[in-house]
Every structure is written in structure tokens, then in C-alpha cells.
């Protein structure tokens, strides 16, 4: 099932500052694994594929995990193309990571189509009790200001880990314009490189 090319494919990106917990969230969601105190910053781009059923219909999610470190600016404008949704992740226990989110929203908004689904995720919810530096209200207010959905999660405790993925996909498939793009993938005038046809000077030539 997971490799079924014929399923409608949704492209989701995870962006946000380094150390926010993007890779941990994705690994917990996809593989149900968590590595405490991992110090492996993402350097290139990682991606995972997962089939998610929403309202009885399967969708093939391609989930791109990106590097948050400024110096490894792997995100080219072309990277955002075709994205249906962007998850913007910050760390609720680090105020600086939250304060930087305007910049990430600006980048996502500048490079995606209008109506793209945005989801703000406050990560490391398990630290809420002792180390919280950003209130849920602040997070929600920022999300609302950008028309984004919002929740807080913990990759460590598993709390809410599925929620942002399920809700963003649910939001995307509710939007006929976005889901149409997901089904057909490409614009009407575009050319597929695996097709072969006639109409030229050459009869079907085998060279």
C-alpha cells in the first residue's frame, strides 16, 4: 500500500529553527521511535512516506524534514513548489525559537500558493510543567494571525503526535482547490516525460 503510486499524494514540509524538534516529531509519528538527547541536527533534507487514511480515503503523504540551521539553507524556492501544507515547529521550552517564527511564516507564505495549509506546532509539551517559556495562548494567537492551525505536542511522551498530521491532512482534503492539485498533480498544459506519441516528421522511430 505504502508504495502505491496511484494514491493522491500530499506534500508536507516541516520547517522551523534548529533543535525545535522537527525530526523527533517526524520519527515518532512515522516510526514510533524517540531518541532523548539526540544531538543530530538534520543537515540535508530527510523525507518519509506514509499512507494516512482520512474519512475512509487513503492519501500518500510525502513528509519532508528540513534543516533548521541557518547556515545549511537547503530550502530553495523550488523546494516549496507543490507543497499542500507546511508544519512550522517551535520549542515551547525555548522562547527564542518562538520569537523566530515570524521569519519562518514569512518564508513559507512567500514561497507557497495561496490557500496552502499552515500548521503551527509547539513541540516538547512534556517540558510544560517545569520549563515552559511560551504559553499555549501565545502560540494560538500567532497561529490565528497567520490563518494557521495550532497544537502542542510531545515526541517524548507521544502526546498529540498524530494530531497535527491528521488535522492538516483533514484540512487539505476539505479544500477542493488544493485537493484537485493533489489529484492531478500538474497543470493541464504540462508534458510527461514517459509518454510517447506520434505527430512528428518521423514515423515511430526507435532511435
Amino acid at each position, binding site marked *: *500500500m*505504502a*508504495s502505491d503510486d496511484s494514491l493522491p499524494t500530499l506534500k508536507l514540509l516541516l520547517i522551523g529553527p534548529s533543535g525545535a524538534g522537527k525530526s523527533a516529531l517526524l520519527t515518532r509519528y*512515522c*516510526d514510533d521511535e524517540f531518541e532523548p538527547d539526540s*544531538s*543530530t*541536527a538534520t*543537515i*540535508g*533534507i*530527510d*523525507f*518519509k*512516506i*506514509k*499512507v*494516512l*487514511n*482520512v*474519512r475512509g480515503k*487513503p492519501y500518500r503523504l510525502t513528509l519532508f524534514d528540513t534543516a533548521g540551521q541557518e*547556515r*545549511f*539553507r*537547503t530550502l*530553495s*524556492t*523550488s*523546494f516549496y*513548489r507543490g507543497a499542500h501544507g507546511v508544519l512550522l515547529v517551535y520549542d515551547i521550552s525555548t522562547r527564542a525559537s518562538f520569537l523566530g517564527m515570524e521569519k519562518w511564516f514569512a518564508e513559507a507564505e*512567500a514561497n507557497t500558493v495561496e490557500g496552502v495549509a499552515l500548521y503551527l506546532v509547539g513541540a516538547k509539551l512534556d517540558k510544560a510543567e517545569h520549563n515552559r517559556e511560551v504559553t499555549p495562548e501565545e502560540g494560538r494567537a500567532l497561529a490565528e494571525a497567520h490563518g494557521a492551525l495550532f497544537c502542542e505536542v510531545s515526541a517524548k511522551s507521544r502526546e498529540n503526535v*498524530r494530531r497535527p*498530521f*491528521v488535522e492538516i491532512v*483533514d484540512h487539505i482534503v476539505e479544500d477542493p482547490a488544493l485537493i484537485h492539485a493533489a489529484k492531478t498533480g*500538474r*497543470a*493541464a*498544459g*504540462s*508534458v*510527461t*516525460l*514517459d*509518454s*510517447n*506519441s*506520434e*505527430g*512528428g*516528421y*518521423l514515423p515511430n*522511430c526507435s*532511435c
Partner: protein
Amino acid sequence: MESLSDTLWDVVICGTGLQQSLLALALSRSDKKVLHIDPHDYYGGQDAALSLQEAESWVADVEAGKEPSFRSALITKPDGSTGLGFPRAYSLALSPQLIHARSALLEQLVSSRAYRQVEFLAVGSFFIFNPAQDPSQKPTLARIPSTREDVFLTTAIPTKAKRGLMKFLKFVLDYESSPQTDLWQPDAEAPLTEFLSRQFKMDTELQTYIITLSLSLDGKITTKDGLAVIRRHLSSMGMYGPGFAAIYPKWGGLSEIAQISCRAGAVGGAVYMLGTGIKAMKEGEDPIEVELTSGDVIKTRSLVRSGNDATGQIETARLVAVVGSPIKSLFEATAEGAPTPAVAVVAFPAGSLSTPGGKASEYPAYVSVHSSDTGECPNGQSVLYMTTLATSESQEILDQALDSFLGAVGDDQAPQCLYKLQYKRLEGSTQSPAHGSIFDFTIPSTSLSFNDSTLEPVRDAWKMVMGDAAVDAEYMQFTDREGAAEDDDL
């Protein structure tokens, strides 16, 4: 993670132009440690696609001498023009080459599976500009028939001439086989036009059709080269669908191919740093020690750089113009079932234009017209990419070509030009690419259609980096990446 300077890199690639990026793609499934840097803040280098803001700072860089292969860059906005969209709505390609279906580049993009990330659009008709016969008339654009049926049906060509054209088309498809070779080989280095007139009795008008299809910049392409490019054009026709021979990557041409190649590199674990160049290096050491402009000092087994293009052999003059009209008449599908083309080509034959001083154009000028389907401008507008060989008058000639073009496509009123970016570009550098473990890309002289010779240095650089591990048959041969996890049900 390990810091940059603790790692012994297998290669540092400097620059994210098409060639360097294709190298990153070629290495993306190897176990080589790749550090890919670019002094620019954007991907693509000399092949980038620029927003209007980026274009502005690019012009400043060119004028400051920071872009060795470019000069005389200038942006102008005609007085009184209105309707330019917001700066990010534009993506002006520095390398807007069309790609013929039979290009080895497409073969490599398919075999490396990278093509899945790119959206390709059809390049439709080729037109020839005919100046107005007298001032009361409008100049016109004549479409070059593009398929056998087209040639057969067209009323623009007299029947007798048609026969010569059909005969030539048949000949060229098989021109490399034995009896045909006798016909052209003695004239291999002579201009194609002479050959066409002698062997196929073509008049100047038909010769112009053929020269236009060859996209020859000086109009004097040799018989040998000309037959090769015409064959490529004709045999590309219909390959990916009816009615078109070439395609164009959406969102800025070769820039897009460079970007998806870098992304493949990043997915493969290469480290990317934009806004970072080489500050200093100690040559002759193994490993090479390189100081980056970021201050990091790193060690690498090999180094790949962009050549210093100031050694270029050919200089072209370019004019990129944003026009406030969709110019729909140029983008009609010409064959049944053909996709709507997003690019049209208009040729101004040598002599069809003149400077304000009355001097006739010495070389042909070409305009690639891009509809908003290319994603390079907002709906309702189009982008013109105009090229001619650089001369002391070339800028005036291009301005004249722009005016004439707008006059030819307008109904009652000529469409308005909203924005102009002009520059000159040096191409076809000659220095020798490899010395030891350092490789400098040379730029083959680009034409308006992607030139496969651009790809050869990439493979050479790949061989240098891979060393003994290079297996030719595996070059750019990859399977789709799968990062599949368990299903999830809601």
C-alpha cells in the same frame, strides 16, 4: 553533528549553476562526503531565475564586477507603464534555454528519477518576423510549419518549393547514412544556406525557415553543424506528445533543474551553505585546505569550481522584457491533442531590423516568448527573452526587435512593455578544466536550445571525484527513493 572542519570532505563544490548542481545529483547516491556552497544567497548562479528584487541586486553585482561572465546590466521601466505585479511574482531566467526532446539532459533526468520534481511545458511554434512592406502596414509573424502535415497543408509555401522542403526534411533525418553523406560532406564546413540553395534549390525565404529552426546566433551555421541541429529538431518532434519538439522547465528554465538537482544532493546527505564562497586555499596539498568566506577552514580531497567565464569566446546581448499582455495568438496548440504551449520562438532574420541610425542588423535576433504558464510572471502578462550576438549596436537592435514584435502582435494597440532587464553575457570559456584534484567547469557556448556538450564536463568532474569507484554504466542511473513508514488510519 561533526563540525565542518572536522570532516574530511571528498569534494567541495562551489557554485550551484546547472553543471555544479548536476554533479551534486550525480553524486547523490554515492557515499562521498559532499559540501556544496555558493557565494550567492540563491540557487542557480549564472543559471538562476530572479525575482525583481533579486534582479536589482544582481544588476548591482554585475556592475560591481562580481559576476565575471556578465556586464552592462541595466534595469529600466518605461515611463508611464503600470501594472507590474509584486516583485516575487516574477522569476526571470538567466538561462531560458529550451530543451529538445532528444537531449541527453532529459535522458539523465529520467534515469536519475529527478525529472519527477520538475514540471515541463511544451515549446510551441517558431515564427519568422516579416517587416512591414510599407509604413501603412503592420509587420507580421509567419509560423514555420512544424510537422509533415503542416508543410503539406500550409498555403504560405508554393507547391514547387514545398517539394524541395519535403525532400530536404526526408534527407536530413537520415543524412549520416552512406549515400547521403556524399551529398553534404564536401561542403561540411561551408554555410548551410549555400548547401540548401545548391542541393535543394531553396529560396532565401525557405533558407530562413531552416536557419531559424537551427537557432544559429550568427546565421552562418556550417552545413555539418546545421544538419545535426535540424535533425535533432525534427527527430524530437512528437517525441513527448504531438506538435512540439522541445520543452521548457516551469518556473525559470535551467534554474529549476539546478534546484531540484541540489535538492537531490541534500536528500543524499550533501551539506549546503548559501552565501558562502571560497576565500583562500592552499593548493598543491593533499587534502586541499580551503578557507570559506564564513571563516570555516575545511579539508577536502577534491574541489570543483565554476570556471572564470571572463575567458568566454562568444558574447551575447540579452534583453528580458515583461509585457502587459498574454499575447494569446502565439500560444495556440497546432496539432490535435497537443498541450497548450507556454513558449513560442520568434526569429528576426539578419537584416530585418535596423538601428535608429538606419544600419541593418548584421545577425539574427531571437525572442523566446513565455506565457504566464511558465510561472515567470503573473497571469495576463508574458516575458520576452531576446538574444542576439553582441555588437556595438546590439542593444539598439534588441530594443528595435522589442518594438517591432509588440507592433506585430498587437491588435489595435501594441501591448505595453512594463519592465526591461538588459545585459551582456560571455559564453564558451576555453581554459582546461582539470588539474590534479581541482576541476573548473568550462561553459560551452550556449545556444538558445540546451547544448548537450554542457553535460560532458559534469561527467568528467564526477569521474574525478569518484576515482576508482566510477562505473560509467551507473552514471545517473538511480531508482526512486522510498522512505515508506507504516500506514496510519484515522
